[in-house]
């Protein structure tokens, strides 16, 4: 069911074109990496502030509110390019163990967002009340850094799994 959908997806004309293109594929990949740089630095900046390691002359609320929308835009750009890259070889990605690990890590990112939405990211003004950021903010930041770094490594490792024979590429 899922696999037949993925075969259908990868054989849609734009994705067949992308798969066999000499230069379009690396352009999409480079845009993916550019978006990762922008998005990644915003994640690190937020987390460093939550840990109290950088931007200490600004309040936590300022940094969290400042980067909330830019982060969403950066993620959307990275995810859109990622979806294009995935769709051009959807069947192969399905079998790739590092792709599966990456998807699992994204699920954990979603859980992280739900767990800390109320207590950290949704109410940053309360985090500024003490002299030090509260423990829950530091925990959220540490886990976020770990998860995104793991996603980066899993993403890079996807390219090192040899292609499988018997894929249904048109």
């Amino acid at each position, binding site marked *: 069911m899922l696999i037949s959908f993925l075969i259908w997806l990868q054989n849609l004309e734009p994705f067949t074109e992308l798969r066999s293109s*000499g230069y379009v594929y690396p352009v999409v990949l480079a845009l993916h990496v550019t978006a990762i740089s922008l998005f990644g*630095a915003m994640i690190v900046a937020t987390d460093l502030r939550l840990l109290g390691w950088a931007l200490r002359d600004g309040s936590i609320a300022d940094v969290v509110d400042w980067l909330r929308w*830019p982060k969403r835009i950066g993620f959307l750009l990275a995810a859109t390019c990622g979806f294009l890259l995935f769709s051009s070889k959807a069947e192969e990605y399905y079998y790739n163990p590092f792709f599966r690990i990456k998807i699992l890590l994204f699920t954990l990112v979603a859980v992280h967002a739900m767990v800390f939405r109320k207590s950290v990211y949704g109410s940053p003004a309360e985090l500024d009340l003490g002299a030090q950021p509260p423990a829950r903010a530091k925990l959220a930041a540490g886990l976020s850094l770990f998860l995104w770094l793991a996603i980066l490594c899993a993403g*890079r490792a996807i390219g090192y799994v040899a292609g499988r024979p018997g894929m249904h590429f048109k």
Partner: protein
Amino acid sequence: MLIENPLSTSPSSFPILECFHIAGFALSIGMTALVDFRLLGFGLQKQPPAQIARAFDWWMFGGLIVAVFSGLLLFSTDPDMYYLNWFFLIKMVCLVLAIVFNYTIHRRAVTPGLSPAAGRAVAFVSLALWVSVIFGGIFIAVIRPGLT
């Protein structure tokens, strides 16, 4: 070969170095971009560009050091392929320009008193140079020259 590069004997050393390389340049380029976006008028309005630049300065430098050293090790695994690769040469030119620009004109552009128009121009050049470095890096994989 008289001396074997130890990095070439283990198949996982290249991808592991690449992860350090990506994390390093993502940190340095992304943080520079945050300063550039501030110069362009987006972002933390309460803080002047100088304050954002100062806060990120050492993190940006740390990321750059990690990216450059992991890059040198990656280069060492196949030097003549890189040397003969046009995209690698373009990337190196853009990288040198980007680093020099960052520590001269870009550094001065964040100081208070500069006209916003000049700040925007500097931010635009900075973003263009760093994005060119990323594109150059990705495109190295598109051509694979070798010594014949």
